Protein backbone atom coordinates (compact mmCIF):
# COMPACT_ATOMS: atom_id res chain seq x y z
CA UNK A 1 0.00 0.00 0.00
CA UNK A 2 2.56 2.55 -1.10
CA UNK A 3 0.96 4.06 -4.19
CA UNK A 4 -2.61 4.94 -5.10
CA UNK A 5 -2.63 2.08 -7.56
CA UNK A 6 -1.83 -0.31 -4.72
CA UNK A 7 -4.65 0.92 -2.48
CA UNK A 8 -8.05 -0.64 -2.06
CA UNK A 9 -10.64 1.04 -4.23
CA UNK A 10 -12.55 2.61 -1.32
CA UNK A 11 -9.41 4.19 0.09
CA UNK A 12 -8.27 5.44 -3.30
CA UNK A 13 -11.65 6.93 -4.17
CA UNK A 14 -11.93 8.57 -0.77
CA UNK A 15 -8.53 10.23 -1.11
CA UNK A 16 -9.14 11.41 -4.66
CA UNK A 17 -12.51 12.92 -3.68
CA UNK A 18 -10.96 15.21 -1.05
CA UNK A 19 -11.23 18.94 -1.78
CA UNK A 20 -7.93 20.31 -3.06
CA UNK A 21 -8.40 24.03 -3.67
CA UNK A 22 -5.74 26.07 -5.36
CA UNK A 23 -5.18 29.14 -3.25
CA UNK A 24 -4.72 32.62 -4.60
CA UNK A 25 -1.18 33.85 -4.83
CA UNK A 26 2.06 31.98 -5.22
CA UNK A 27 4.08 32.65 -2.07
CA UNK A 28 7.75 31.84 -2.36
CA UNK A 29 10.24 32.70 0.37
CA UNK A 30 13.94 32.12 -0.11
CA UNK A 31 16.22 31.81 2.85
CA UNK A 32 19.81 31.52 3.95
CA UNK A 33 21.95 28.45 3.24
CA UNK A 34 20.72 25.29 4.96
CA UNK A 35 23.48 25.42 7.55
CA UNK A 36 22.19 28.80 8.71
CA UNK A 37 18.49 28.00 8.81
CA UNK A 38 16.47 27.68 12.00
CA UNK A 39 13.95 24.89 11.42
CA UNK A 40 10.65 23.87 13.02
CA UNK A 41 8.47 20.86 12.34
CA UNK A 42 4.80 21.46 11.65
CA UNK A 43 2.95 18.17 11.47
CA UNK A 44 -0.64 17.29 10.66
CA UNK A 45 -0.32 13.91 12.40
CA UNK A 46 -2.40 14.85 15.44
CA UNK A 47 0.62 14.57 17.72
CA UNK A 48 0.50 15.90 21.25
CA UNK A 49 2.26 15.67 24.55
CA UNK A 50 0.69 12.98 26.70
CA UNK A 51 -0.74 15.49 29.16
CA UNK A 52 -2.38 17.63 26.47
CA UNK A 53 -6.03 17.16 25.57
CA UNK A 54 -6.73 14.92 22.57
CA UNK A 55 -7.67 16.63 19.33
CA UNK A 56 -11.33 17.34 18.75
CA UNK A 57 -13.11 16.21 15.62
CA UNK A 58 -13.59 18.83 12.92
CA UNK A 59 -11.30 21.38 14.48
CA UNK A 60 -8.29 23.27 13.12
CA UNK A 61 -6.75 23.62 16.59
CA UNK A 62 -3.08 22.93 17.16
CA UNK A 63 -0.83 21.62 19.90
CA UNK A 64 2.57 22.94 20.96
CA UNK A 65 5.45 20.48 21.14
CA UNK A 66 8.49 21.64 23.12
CA UNK A 67 11.80 21.65 21.30
CA UNK A 68 13.29 19.43 23.97
CA UNK A 69 10.75 16.67 23.34
CA UNK A 70 11.79 13.04 23.18
CA UNK A 71 9.87 10.87 20.74
CA UNK A 72 8.66 8.63 23.52
CA UNK A 73 6.82 11.56 25.09
CA UNK A 74 4.57 12.00 22.06
CA UNK A 75 1.20 10.37 21.59
CA UNK A 76 -1.14 10.59 18.61
CA UNK A 77 -4.80 11.56 18.75
CA UNK A 78 -5.42 12.04 15.03
CA UNK A 79 -9.08 11.41 14.36
CA UNK A 80 -8.71 9.39 11.13
CA UNK A 81 -8.52 5.61 11.41
CA UNK A 82 -7.33 5.11 7.83
CA UNK A 83 -3.56 5.06 8.21
CA UNK A 84 -0.96 2.93 9.93
CA UNK A 85 -0.03 3.73 13.51
CA UNK A 86 2.21 0.73 14.18
CA UNK A 87 5.25 2.50 12.72
CA UNK A 88 4.80 5.47 15.05
CA UNK A 89 4.30 3.08 17.97
CA UNK A 90 7.75 1.65 17.31
CA UNK A 91 9.59 4.85 16.49
CA UNK A 92 8.21 8.37 16.58
CA UNK A 93 10.84 9.48 14.06
CA UNK A 94 8.95 7.78 11.25
CA UNK A 95 6.38 10.57 11.69
CA UNK A 96 8.25 13.27 13.62
CA UNK A 97 11.96 13.11 12.68
CA UNK A 98 13.27 15.00 15.67
CA UNK A 99 16.28 12.74 16.25
CA UNK A 100 17.29 12.99 12.59
CA UNK A 101 17.08 16.78 12.72
CA UNK A 102 19.16 16.84 15.90
CA UNK A 103 21.81 14.81 14.09
CA UNK A 104 21.88 17.37 11.30
CA UNK A 105 22.10 20.16 13.86
CA UNK A 106 25.00 18.50 15.69
CA UNK A 107 26.83 18.15 12.36
CA UNK A 108 26.17 21.83 11.54
CA UNK A 109 24.31 20.73 8.42
CA UNK A 110 21.42 22.93 9.58
CA UNK A 111 21.66 26.06 11.68
CA UNK A 112 19.44 25.28 14.64
CA UNK A 113 16.13 23.81 15.73
CA UNK A 114 13.12 25.73 16.94
CA UNK A 115 12.23 26.13 20.61
CA UNK A 116 8.78 24.73 19.79
CA UNK A 117 7.20 22.65 17.07
CA UNK A 118 3.49 22.51 16.20
CA UNK A 119 0.94 19.81 15.46
CA UNK A 120 -2.43 19.94 13.75
CA UNK A 121 -4.99 17.20 13.19
CA UNK A 122 -5.19 16.95 9.42
CA UNK A 123 -8.61 15.43 8.91
CA UNK A 124 -12.23 16.25 8.24
CA UNK A 125 -11.66 19.93 7.61
CA UNK A 126 -11.68 22.02 4.48
CA UNK A 127 -8.12 23.19 3.81
CA UNK A 128 -8.90 26.90 4.21
CA UNK A 129 -10.16 26.25 7.75
CA UNK A 130 -6.52 26.16 8.83
CA UNK A 131 -5.70 29.69 7.62
CA UNK A 132 -6.30 31.57 10.87
CA UNK A 133 -4.42 29.19 13.13
CA UNK A 134 -1.63 28.86 10.58
CA UNK A 135 -1.16 32.63 10.77
CA UNK A 136 -1.03 32.36 14.55
CA UNK A 137 1.57 29.59 14.37
CA UNK A 138 3.57 31.61 11.82
CA UNK A 139 3.73 34.52 14.26
CA UNK A 140 4.90 32.21 17.03
CA UNK A 141 7.57 30.74 14.74
CA UNK A 142 8.82 34.16 13.66
CA UNK A 143 9.07 35.24 17.29
CA UNK A 144 11.32 32.21 17.79
CA UNK A 145 13.51 33.39 14.88
CA UNK A 146 12.47 30.38 12.83
CA UNK A 147 12.85 30.94 9.09
CA UNK A 148 12.10 27.44 7.76
CA UNK A 149 9.35 24.88 8.33
CA UNK A 150 9.43 21.17 7.60
CA UNK A 151 5.83 20.16 6.95
CA UNK A 152 4.95 16.56 7.64
CA UNK A 153 1.62 14.89 6.94
CA UNK A 154 0.65 11.42 8.08
Amino acid at each position, binding site marked *: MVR*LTDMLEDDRNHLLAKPCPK*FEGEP*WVEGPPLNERRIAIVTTAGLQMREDAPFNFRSAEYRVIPGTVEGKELVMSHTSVNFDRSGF*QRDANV*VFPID*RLRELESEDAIGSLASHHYAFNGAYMEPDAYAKNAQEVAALLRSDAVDTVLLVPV
Partner: protein
Amino acid sequence: MSALSHFLESEGLSTAGISLVRPHTEQMEPPRALWVPFELGRPFGAPDDAAFQRRVLEAALALLDAGPRPVLADFPDDAPLSDAPAEEAWACPISFPPPPVDPNDIGAAVQAEIGQLAPWYAEAFRSRGRTSVRGESFSVEDAAAHAAAFLGDPPETGAQAVVRLKEALEDLKAFYSEAAAAKPGASSADMSDWLWQETALGRLMFTLSETLAATGDEALTYMAKGSMVPRAQREKARAAAS
Protein backbone atom coordinates in the same frame (compact mmCIF):
# COMPACT_ATOMS: atom_id res chain seq x y z
CA MET B 1 -0.20 19.78 4.41
CA SER B 2 -0.33 21.75 1.17
CA ALA B 3 -2.71 24.31 2.70
CA LEU B 4 -0.45 24.88 5.71
CA SER B 5 2.53 25.20 3.41
CA HIS B 6 0.73 27.91 1.45
CA PHE B 7 -0.38 29.76 4.59
CA LEU B 8 3.01 29.62 6.33
CA GLU B 9 4.93 30.63 3.23
CA SER B 10 2.49 33.54 2.82
CA GLU B 11 3.55 34.62 6.33
CA GLY B 12 7.20 34.83 5.35
CA LEU B 13 8.48 31.35 6.21
CA SER B 14 10.24 28.99 3.81
CA THR B 15 8.51 25.63 3.74
CA ALA B 16 9.40 22.18 2.47
CA GLY B 17 6.93 19.38 2.93
CA ILE B 18 6.41 15.68 2.52
CA SER B 19 3.68 14.66 0.08
CA LEU B 20 1.95 11.31 0.58
CA VAL B 21 -0.83 11.73 -1.97
CA ARG B 22 0.75 13.07 -5.14
CA PRO B 23 -2.48 14.13 -6.93
CA HIS B 24 -3.37 16.37 -3.98
CA THR B 25 0.00 18.08 -4.17
CA GLU B 26 -0.21 18.43 -7.94
CA GLN B 27 -3.56 20.21 -7.58
CA MET B 28 -2.74 22.45 -4.63
CA GLU B 29 0.81 23.37 -5.65
CA PRO B 30 2.52 24.09 -2.33
CA PRO B 31 5.88 25.83 -2.78
CA ARG B 32 8.08 22.76 -2.22
CA ALA B 33 7.12 19.13 -1.70
CA LEU B 34 8.80 15.75 -1.80
CA TRP B 35 6.45 12.97 -2.80
CA VAL B 36 7.29 9.71 -1.06
CA PRO B 37 5.93 6.29 -2.10
CA PHE B 38 5.31 5.19 1.47
CA GLU B 39 2.37 3.83 3.36
CA LEU B 40 0.04 6.39 4.92
CA GLY B 41 1.17 6.87 8.51
CA ARG B 42 4.89 6.54 7.69
CA PRO B 43 6.04 9.77 6.02
CA PHE B 44 9.70 8.95 6.73
CA GLY B 45 9.37 5.42 5.43
CA ALA B 46 10.46 2.97 8.06
CA PRO B 47 10.57 2.88 11.86
CA ASP B 48 13.90 2.12 13.51
CA ASP B 49 15.81 2.83 10.30
CA ALA B 50 17.69 6.04 11.00
CA ALA B 51 19.70 5.90 7.78
CA PHE B 52 16.61 5.68 5.59
CA GLN B 53 14.75 8.35 7.55
CA ARG B 54 17.75 10.61 7.14
CA ARG B 55 17.81 10.14 3.37
CA VAL B 56 14.16 11.20 3.19
CA LEU B 57 14.77 14.18 5.46
CA GLU B 58 17.81 15.35 3.49
CA ALA B 59 15.90 15.00 0.22
CA ALA B 60 13.10 17.17 1.62
CA LEU B 61 15.47 19.82 2.97
CA ALA B 62 17.36 19.89 -0.34
CA LEU B 63 14.21 21.32 -1.94
CA LEU B 64 14.84 24.56 -0.04
CA ASP B 65 17.55 25.32 -2.61
CA ALA B 66 15.46 24.21 -5.59
CA GLY B 67 13.21 26.15 -7.91
CA PRO B 68 11.27 27.47 -9.68
CA ARG B 69 7.99 27.30 -7.83
CA PRO B 70 6.19 24.94 -7.39
CA VAL B 71 8.79 22.29 -6.65
CA LEU B 72 7.46 18.73 -6.59
CA ALA B 73 10.14 16.07 -6.51
CA ASP B 74 9.81 12.30 -6.19
CA PHE B 75 11.73 10.28 -3.64
CA PRO B 76 13.18 7.43 -5.69
CA ASP B 77 12.97 4.44 -3.38
CA ASP B 78 10.30 2.42 -1.67
CA ALA B 79 10.57 2.00 2.08
CA PRO B 80 12.60 -1.00 3.14
CA LEU B 81 10.71 -3.78 4.83
CA SER B 82 10.85 -2.95 8.49
CA ASP B 83 10.96 -6.56 9.56
CA ALA B 84 12.97 -9.45 8.20
CA PRO B 85 10.73 -11.79 6.21
CA ALA B 86 9.34 -14.39 8.55
CA GLU B 87 9.77 -18.05 7.79
CA GLU B 88 6.11 -18.49 8.58
CA ALA B 89 3.16 -16.11 8.65
CA TRP B 90 3.04 -13.79 11.65
CA ALA B 91 0.56 -14.62 14.35
CA CYS B 92 -0.24 -12.89 17.61
CA PRO B 93 1.80 -14.37 20.46
CA ILE B 94 -1.38 -15.68 22.06
CA SER B 95 -4.49 -17.03 20.43
CA PHE B 96 -7.96 -15.85 21.29
CA PRO B 97 -11.25 -17.66 20.88
CA PRO B 98 -13.32 -16.36 17.95
CA PRO B 99 -14.92 -13.00 18.76
CA PRO B 100 -18.41 -13.36 20.24
CA VAL B 101 -21.40 -12.76 18.01
CA ASP B 102 -23.79 -11.65 20.77
CA PRO B 103 -23.12 -7.95 21.59
CA ASN B 104 -23.85 -8.74 25.25
CA ASP B 105 -20.73 -10.91 25.37
CA ILE B 106 -18.32 -8.53 23.66
CA GLY B 107 -17.36 -6.41 26.68
CA ALA B 108 -16.33 -9.41 28.76
CA ALA B 109 -14.43 -10.89 25.82
CA VAL B 110 -12.43 -7.66 25.41
CA GLN B 111 -11.59 -7.65 29.12
CA ALA B 112 -10.39 -11.26 28.83
CA GLU B 113 -8.20 -10.34 25.86
CA ILE B 114 -6.70 -7.43 27.79
CA GLY B 115 -5.79 -9.80 30.59
CA GLN B 116 -4.08 -12.17 28.18
CA LEU B 117 -2.24 -9.38 26.38
CA ALA B 118 -1.06 -7.58 29.52
CA PRO B 119 2.23 -9.51 29.92
CA TRP B 120 3.05 -8.95 26.25
CA TYR B 121 2.26 -5.27 26.51
CA ALA B 122 4.59 -5.06 29.52
CA GLU B 123 7.31 -6.81 27.53
CA ALA B 124 6.84 -4.44 24.58
CA PHE B 125 7.01 -1.45 26.92
CA ARG B 126 10.23 -2.75 28.44
CA SER B 127 11.89 -3.36 25.11
CA ARG B 128 10.73 -0.13 23.43
CA GLY B 129 11.04 2.10 26.45
CA ARG B 130 7.84 3.85 25.44
CA THR B 131 4.16 3.40 24.84
CA SER B 132 1.73 5.31 22.65
CA VAL B 133 -1.13 4.42 24.99
CA ARG B 134 -2.00 7.84 26.38
CA GLY B 135 -3.53 6.48 29.57
CA GLU B 136 -4.42 9.86 31.01
CA SER B 137 -8.18 9.39 31.24
CA PHE B 138 -8.62 5.65 31.41
CA SER B 139 -6.83 2.47 32.37
CA VAL B 140 -7.15 0.06 29.45
CA GLU B 141 -9.71 -1.93 31.44
CA ASP B 142 -11.74 1.22 32.06
CA ALA B 143 -11.36 2.20 28.42
CA ALA B 144 -12.84 -1.14 27.40
CA ALA B 145 -15.72 -0.79 29.85
CA HIS B 146 -16.36 2.76 28.69
CA ALA B 147 -16.48 1.71 25.03
CA ALA B 148 -18.59 -1.37 25.67
CA ALA B 149 -21.17 0.74 27.48
CA PHE B 150 -22.01 2.33 24.11
CA LEU B 151 -23.28 -1.02 22.84
CA GLY B 152 -26.46 -0.23 24.78
CA ASP B 153 -28.12 3.14 25.18
CA PRO B 154 -25.22 5.60 24.88
CA PRO B 155 -24.17 6.78 28.36
CA GLU B 156 -23.32 10.20 26.92
CA THR B 157 -23.78 11.98 23.62
CA GLY B 158 -22.45 14.98 21.75
CA ALA B 159 -19.01 16.21 20.82
CA GLN B 160 -17.32 15.54 24.17
CA ALA B 161 -18.72 12.00 24.24
CA VAL B 162 -17.06 11.42 20.90
CA VAL B 163 -13.70 12.75 22.10
CA ARG B 164 -13.79 10.50 25.17
CA LEU B 165 -14.91 7.42 23.25
CA LYS B 166 -12.29 8.06 20.60
CA GLU B 167 -9.63 8.37 23.29
CA ALA B 168 -10.73 5.09 24.88
CA LEU B 169 -10.64 3.27 21.54
CA GLU B 170 -7.29 4.73 20.50
CA ASP B 171 -5.77 3.64 23.79
CA LEU B 172 -7.19 0.14 23.35
CA LYS B 173 -5.92 -0.19 19.80
CA ALA B 174 -2.47 1.02 20.82
CA PHE B 175 -2.42 -1.41 23.75
CA TYR B 176 -3.35 -4.35 21.51
CA SER B 177 -0.92 -3.40 18.73
CA GLU B 178 2.02 -2.84 21.02
CA ALA B 179 1.34 -6.07 22.91
CA ALA B 180 1.03 -8.12 19.73
CA ALA B 181 4.18 -6.54 18.30
CA ALA B 182 6.14 -8.07 21.15
CA LYS B 183 6.30 -10.98 18.73
CA PRO B 184 8.27 -9.44 15.85
CA GLY B 185 7.68 -9.94 12.17
CA ALA B 186 4.24 -8.37 11.76
CA SER B 187 3.71 -6.04 8.83
CA SER B 188 1.32 -3.16 9.37
CA ALA B 189 -1.26 -5.12 7.35
CA ASP B 190 -0.76 -8.23 9.50
CA MET B 191 -1.32 -6.17 12.62
CA SER B 192 -4.37 -4.41 11.29
CA ASP B 193 -5.96 -7.61 9.97
CA TRP B 194 -5.40 -9.36 13.27
CA LEU B 195 -6.82 -6.54 15.37
CA TRP B 196 -9.88 -5.89 13.22
CA GLN B 197 -10.79 -9.36 12.00
CA GLU B 198 -9.69 -11.68 14.80
CA THR B 199 -10.17 -9.94 18.14
CA ALA B 200 -13.15 -9.09 20.29
CA LEU B 201 -11.94 -5.48 20.26
CA GLY B 202 -12.30 -5.46 16.49
CA ARG B 203 -15.77 -6.95 16.85
CA LEU B 204 -16.60 -4.28 19.45
CA MET B 205 -15.65 -1.48 17.06
CA PHE B 206 -17.46 -3.02 14.08
CA THR B 207 -20.56 -3.38 16.27
CA LEU B 208 -20.24 0.15 17.65
CA SER B 209 -20.05 1.52 14.12
CA GLU B 210 -23.56 0.15 13.60
CA THR B 211 -25.12 0.88 17.00
CA LEU B 212 -23.80 4.45 17.23
CA ALA B 213 -25.01 5.27 13.74
CA ALA B 214 -28.51 4.33 14.91
CA THR B 215 -28.52 6.57 18.01
CA GLY B 216 -29.67 9.68 16.19
CA ASP B 217 -26.92 11.70 17.89
CA GLU B 218 -25.12 13.73 15.25
CA ALA B 219 -21.65 13.52 16.75
CA LEU B 220 -21.81 9.78 17.52
CA THR B 221 -23.21 9.07 14.06
CA TYR B 222 -20.44 11.10 12.44
CA MET B 223 -17.84 9.13 14.35
CA ALA B 224 -19.51 5.81 13.64
CA LYS B 225 -19.59 6.38 9.92
CA GLY B 226 -16.34 8.22 9.39
CA SER B 227 -13.87 7.48 12.16
CA MET B 228 -14.51 4.07 13.62
CA VAL B 229 -13.59 1.27 11.21
CA PRO B 230 -10.91 1.67 8.54
CA ARG B 231 -12.33 1.48 5.02
CA ALA B 232 -9.89 -1.29 4.14
CA GLN B 233 -11.09 -3.41 7.06
CA ARG B 234 -14.75 -2.84 6.16
CA GLU B 235 -13.98 -4.07 2.68
CA LYS B 236 -12.20 -7.16 4.02
CA ALA B 237 -15.09 -7.96 6.34
CA ARG B 238 -17.55 -7.62 3.47
CA ALA B 239 -15.43 -9.88 1.27
CA ALA B 240 -15.12 -12.47 4.04
CA ALA B 241 -18.88 -12.46 4.60
CA SER B 242 -19.80 -12.89 0.95
